[in-house]
């Protein structure tokens, strides 16, 4: 069922752009062009965090963190391999992307760990980054309950989402 979503969506959009004469080919090229700038902007952040993440993994610190958090994660039904991802996801987009890439290469994209990681990454946001940048140009210094509410909501969503994985 889920395999149909994207091809059908593409077909509808392409057909609609053709019928309404919006030049689908030119539009696609225009959009794709933006990817170069976007990648160049992301690259230094990605490099900095990946150097740290790789060192963190090779040194064994990552395994220690995962083992320390295993009982907590197990109690909510999540595999311990996701400890790093859960930690970095609210803080850094590039960092969690690097972890996600590592999980796919180490455990496979179709393993339970890989699918769980996909749900967590796909259904959450960089909470701390967003709240910093949204208020960056205002006088507001105290965000009060914004971050705790967002963290609790995201965590609950992720746990339920990973639980739902067993039925799909």
């Amino acid at each position, binding site marked *: 069922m889920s395999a149909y979503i994207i091809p059908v969506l593409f077909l509808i959009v392409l057909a609609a752009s053709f019928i309404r004469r919006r030049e689908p080919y030119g539009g696609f090229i225009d959009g794709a062009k933006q990817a170069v700038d976007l990648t160049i902007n992301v690259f230094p952040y990605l490099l900095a965090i990946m150097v740290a993440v790789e060192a963190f993994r090779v040194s064994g610190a990552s395994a220690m963190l995962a083992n320390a958090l295993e009982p907590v994660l197990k109690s909510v039904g999540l595999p311990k391999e996701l400890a790093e991802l859960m930690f970095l996801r609210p803080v850094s987009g590039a960092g969690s992307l690097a972890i996600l890439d590592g999980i796919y290469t180490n455990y496979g994209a179709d393993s339970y760990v890989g699918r769980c990681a996909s749900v967590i990454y796909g259904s959450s946001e960089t909470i701390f980054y967003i709240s910093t940048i949204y208020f960056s140009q205002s006088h507001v210094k105290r965000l009060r309950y914004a971050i705790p*509410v967002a963290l609790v909501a995201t965590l609950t969503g992720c746990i339920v989402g990973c639980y739902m994985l067993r039925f799909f």
Partner: protein
Amino acid sequence: MAIIWLIMLCASLGLMIFTDPAAAVNSMITGAHGAVELSLNLMALYAFWLGFFSLIERLGLSRGLERLLRPVISRLFPSCDAETRKFITMNVSANLLGLGNAATPMAISAINRMDTGDKKASTDMIMLTVISATSLQILPTTVIGMRATAGSANPADFLFPSLIATILSTFIGIVGVKLCAKIFDRPRKNRKAEISTAAPLGNVAATQKPRRTRVKRDRAQKQKRKAVKA
């Protein structure tokens, strides 16, 4: 982020000095190589999805989405003016389509318009932040692309659980903000109302306040007293 990066790097380097100093340089260089490879993969994914999204934009779908969202936004942000609501609507619709880069400037403009010089964030500001921070993206394009790159049999097979997770988290976020607003913002108003009823020429409107909030506050105070005793 800067602090976490520093802690991660220092902790692992400190650890490796004792365990395996030769691995330190190798692992960091491996990480740098990995970053180049990953960003090339990402460039392909971004180009693909951005191309597709520019078709969606040309169809005017985002404008249609904005029209659809308008009534919902005015319910969630009751004390904003029309111009601010427009920015919020644009932010939410861009987030729904996964165009986070387009969404951020809209949110900054909206927050700046809501800014009254107060150091504390207003409920509406918190609502906007929480709605964005609990993720609204319908189609997690980057994840689908990365799974396809990693050779998944069906890269989109996590979509339904992911959708459930993101809808649930946003829903809990909205309810949480409303609840926290009731708990943290209302008592102050009630205290003012009490003072005005105690005064001889008290405000009549205060007696018309719904009783439910008062009961809730009493319960909260009782719990507080219990906590103090314990």
